[in-house]
């Protein structure tokens, strides 16, 4: 792993034109490692763990359903909201990890395809990341990645 390879940058003077590598602010190997780790962690721990918890949450509020006490009713309502919010959070974490995986893929793909100045590359990569984080899908997204997301996408299901 190393600092990212650079694209060429013209420099020099007195009529000399030298091609000097300029580092671009991307650590491709590091990003690939990060992406691989994130994918493993998602499949091995986060997704299965979240699914089990969500399944239990989806049982809903199971206490005091016939109790006439107002306090119990209030507690039931608030607990229902907690279940709903936590379920949504867990689903979001899984989806967010998938977004990150896609984002890294796009960064790496765009980096490799780029033949621009360091400034241009950095701007493009920032745009790519911003687009992915904003929820846009890019035609560059690996289809297998899309398939994988679709296959595993978690849904909160019925509200508790």
């Amino acid at each position, binding site marked *: 792993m190393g600092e990212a390879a650079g694209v060429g940058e013209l420099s020099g003077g007195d009529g000399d034109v030298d091609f000097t590598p300029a580092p671009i602010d991307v650590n491709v190997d590091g990003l690939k490692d990060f992406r691989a780790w994130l994918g493993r962690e998602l499949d091995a*721990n*986060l997704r299965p763990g979240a699914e089990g918890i969500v399944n239990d949450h989806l049982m809903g509020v199971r206490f005091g359903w016939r109790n006439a006490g107002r306090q119990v009713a209030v507690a039931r309502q608030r607990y229902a909201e907690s279940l709903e919010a936590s379920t949504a959070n867990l689903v979001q974490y899984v989806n967010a990890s998938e977004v990150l995986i896609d984002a890294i893929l796009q960064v790496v793909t765009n980096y490799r395809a780029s033949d621009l100045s360091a400034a241009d590359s950095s701007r493009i990569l920032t745009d790519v990341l911003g687009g992915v984080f904003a929820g846009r899908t890019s035609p560059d997204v690996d289809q297998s990645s899309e398939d994988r997301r679709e296959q595993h996408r978690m849904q909160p299901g019925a509200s508790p």
Partner: protein
Amino acid sequence: MSPDLGAIHYLGTGPTALGAYDVWQVYGLDQLWEMVRDEDGVASFTQVGAWHRMAELCSEQADQLQRALDQLMVHWPARPGSAAELFKLQVGRLVASMRESAVIAAATKQPLTDITMELGRAKDELGVLIERKRTYEGQEAALSSRAAYPGRGATDVPPPAAEVPPEGWRQALPAQPDRPGRTAAVAAIGGLTLLALLGAAFVVVGIRRARRP
């Protein structure tokens, strides 16, 4: 009247609303029992386990993610305006949200445990009372079915003391409407003070959603 709605209807929130104790007076033992008879706590304790697992999962994932991000950032410095900065910001938000969820999940376990235990105790205590009531009612029914005027040759043998309900048992049995001694039963089912506190605890429990990275 639907037993699961009655008290809520009666309670209200205005200055003229009845107090909780007054409200509970409209319920008899049978109605109170109906409110708790299905409280087995199985699902709720399963969810206690789920909250525990969520706390651990979110905490561990946040730690791992932060560690991986830190390692990445060593070689991909987050300079202002760079893609690395944006990446670090988004992952950092995810980590922060996971940590928050871990804290909230851990804080939710105890109130849920307490409520489930309290309702289980109410069920146990009311179960004893309802069983006693049924026994006495059965004894009364058996006594009333005995011949009032035994036929010729019959011997008017008094029933064994164990088969005769105590004098005035209805008045003595707690949780009869407008009977003395009902405070314990009402407290058993309501656990009102505790449940009010637990209800407040759920306010603290998060209703926050993670922001999308």
